Every structure is written in C-alpha cells, then in structure tokens.
C-alpha cells in the first residue's frame, strides 16, 4: 500500500532524484544537488543562531562581560567572505590557529607518534607469546610498520649508495599499502551497501509499501 505521508513522498522523490544519476546527469539530479546545498547552508545558519544564543548567554546575562571580545572577533571573522576586507578576519583566525595548533600538536606527539612507537616496541616482545596466529601477526606488524613509515617518509629518494636497498624497502612498502587499501575497500563495500539498503528501504518499503 503506497504511503500517504508527505514526508515519505518527499524523501522518496529526493531518493529518485539522487539515483537518477545512474542514468546520467539530468535536471532531476540537479534539483537533488541544489536541495542538498540549500538544506546544508540553511541548517548551518539555524545551528549557528542557536549556538550563538547558547554560547553568549553568560555575556547577555552579565555573568561574563569579557565575552564581548570573542563576539567582536567572531563578527570580524565574517569578513573572510569579502575579498577587499578579508584581512580583518586574520585576527580571529590567528586566535583559532594558535589554540587549535597548540592542542593538536601535543596530542599528535603523545598519541600518534610516541603511542604508536611504544606499541610497536611492546608488540616486538609479544612476538614470543603464544598463540601462533598472534605471534605471526605481531611479527608482521613489527616488520611492516617501519618499512611503511620509510616508504612514506622517503617517497622521493635522492640517488646515493643506499638507493638500491631503499628501492627494495619502498617496493615492500608499496605492497603493504596495497594490502591496507585492499582491506579498507573490502570493508567499505559493506558500509556503502548498508547505506544503499537504507535508502532503497525507504523507497521500496516505506513509500511503495511492498
């Protein structure tokens, strides 16, 4: 039994607009694209309004008058859309860059670099701990990780006496990433098929009632 809910009809028609790309570029698909663009921008603005209300409540209630400074800086940041006066936005952006970079630098150092190196070293010890499948796994990890890092850091290698061994390492590194990307693509198929099921379910079950 076909649905009578207007929202289901709207989502079904928009799904058809989107899937019409499989047929080729067409006006229906364009309607879908610009509906997407419009709702994204609209949602950002609505979210922005309510977020502003929430974030500057202490200023409006007089609890924290110093928030006038980020309010002014925030308004200055809007000038980035105006080419002639885009320089006005450089000050608030500088504050954001400073704070964001400082925070992420310390985290990257501690987690991504030192954390991973520590993990590789501890896994080197685990090579001798059964079961066999884990032992082989840790051995692969401990050998593959430095080679893959070498491949990424020395993508362009200057000619020198070490060129030939470096070339072999980079070839192995290439294959390590082929394995990684192959496994990722295999997983992505499951992810994307689930999303396709979700959208087609809306069309077939909810709209057409089949």
């Amino acid at each position, binding site marked *: 039994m076909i649905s009578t809910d207007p929202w289901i009809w709207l989502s079904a028609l928009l799904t058809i607009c989107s899937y019409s790309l499989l047929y080729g570029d067409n006006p229906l698909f364009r309607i879908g694209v610009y509906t997407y663009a419009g709702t994204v921008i609209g949602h950002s603005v609505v979210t922005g309004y*309510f977020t502003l209300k929430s974030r500057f409540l202490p200023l409006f209630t007089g609890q924290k008058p110093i928030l006038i400074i980020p309010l002014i800086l925030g308004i200055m940041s809007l000038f980035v859309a105006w080419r002639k006066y885009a320089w006005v936005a450089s000050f608030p952006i500088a504050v954001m860059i400073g704070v*964001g970079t400082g925070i*992420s630098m310390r985290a990257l150092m501690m987690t991504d670099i030192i954390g991973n190196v520590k*993990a590789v070293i501890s896994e080197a010890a685990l090579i001798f701990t059964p079961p066999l499948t884990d032992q082989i796994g840790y051995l692969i990890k401990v050998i593959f990780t430095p080679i893959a890092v070498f491949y990424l850091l020395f993508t362009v290698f200057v000619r020198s006496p070490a060129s030939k061994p470096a070339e072999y390492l980079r070839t192995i590194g290439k294959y390590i990433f082929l394995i990684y990307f192959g496994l990722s693509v295999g997983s992505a198929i499951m*992810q994307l*098929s689930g999303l396709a099921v979700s959208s087609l379910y809306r069309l077939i079950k909810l709209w057409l009632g089949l």
Partner: protein
Amino acid sequence: MAMRIPELKSQYIWAILLAIFTVAIIHPIEIPIPMSKATLDVYNMIENLPEGSIVAVGGAYVFAFDLESSASMIACLKQMARNHLRVVFVPLSVEAVQMHKYCIDMARVDEKYGGPWKYGRDYVQLPYMPGMDAALVAFLTDVHSAVATDVYGTPLDELPLMRDLHSYKDISLWICIHWAFPMIVRYVTSERGIPSVYFAQAAAYASYAPYMAMYPGKVFMTLGFLGGAQYEKLVGIKGLGYAAMNAYSFLVIAFVIFVILGNITMLTRLGEEEE
C-alpha cells in the same frame, strides 16, 4: 578459437545490483549472525558499568557516514537504559545533534515512548560545540564553563544529570559514533585515561585499529553494520544492522561473480592480444 566474452556495460551491472537489493528488501531471509569477540567485549564492558555511571556520547562527522554506527548505538542505548546508566550527548559537529536525536528517538528509551529514561535526569543533549579539538578539551576541563545551556536553552544547573557532571573525572566511558574518533582517543583516552568505545564505520576500522593496540583494555571498536547486527542480537532487536547484513549477504555473491567474470573476460582476450 576461444570463446570471446563481451564486456558487461556498467548499466547492466547496476540493474542486477538494484534487483538484488530489491529482492533482499522485499523478501529478507533469516540469516544467522555469528558473534565476534570485539562486539562481545564492548557489550560486557557496558554491562559491568555501575548503575548511575555517566557515559558521554559524542564526536564529530556527518550524519550519513555515522548512520552505520547508529545500528550499534541504538542497541547500546537500550542496554544502557536497561542498566540505569546516564548519558550526556556531546555534539562536536553541526550534524551531530541530529544524529544523537535520531539515535535516542529510534531507541525508544525516552518516557514519551514508554521507556525508562527521563530527559534531564537520565540523559541530556548538549548544543553543538564548535571548535573540534579545542571544544572537546574545554568540555573535558570544565563542562559548565565550556557550555552554559542544553540544546533547549535550559541552564545546565537546572538539569539533575548535569549537576553531577563537572569535568572528565565524572565520565566513566566515552562512546563515539562519528568518524573523527582519533580526536576522542587523543584527548579522552590518551590524555585523561577514560575508556572509549567506537562503533566504527567498516572502512574506518582498519584505519583506527592501531589505537586498540596502543591502549589495550581502554579502546574498543566494533565493525560497521556487522557489529551493529551483532549488538542488536545481544540486545534482542532486529534493526538497520540486521537489514544491512541481510542484503549484503546477497550482494557479496554478486560481487564475487562479477570479479570472476571480469577475470574470465580478461583471460579470453589474452589469446587475442597475443595473436
């Protein structure tokens, strides 16, 4: 002369796939969902949390990608409601508010759906907090100065749950259902020692599996829709995860057949090229 197999046009492949999805949706078959250790670990960890523990659910990314995690999240919310845990939703991206609302509505745990949870006492939705890493750090340092109200505009002091949450020290577990999980590991688990769970999107699992090795016993991940179907089984429901895996079981057969067909096509043309 060897038989020459013609190249399949993409449109025919798409039509076959569309037919497979349609059949799978209209006539789903009963498929067994075997359990993985990864999902079981997450489930047991949440089961063992003391009653009244505060669990933070949050992160940043887009709704469409996070839909895959919603399968596990919805089942997990039912489990947490059953175990009288308390949840604070911490949206760090523009769409995260909508994602969290979607999960809570679909889980039917609110009292308006007959569930045990009451807004303000058992769960709270915070408003969008812009600034990504800086927002997360500010939230973990001092919740009440990082955010003044909930998503409805109610001051936090008026919400019973938020009177018990002041900083990261009051959080027992962080659940991430968004792609930007590294941010959570870095600032929540690595810097502050709070265990974190990621209902990973399938493609993200391979990318973030090293975090589990870095922090064993502190970082847990499930695998995409498969993890979602497994979690749903543990909680006793059949949702998006189950439906997705149902269709996927058919799709993978078609996928393998197409790859084999492609290779056979290549082999039949090899002789031609040599000639």
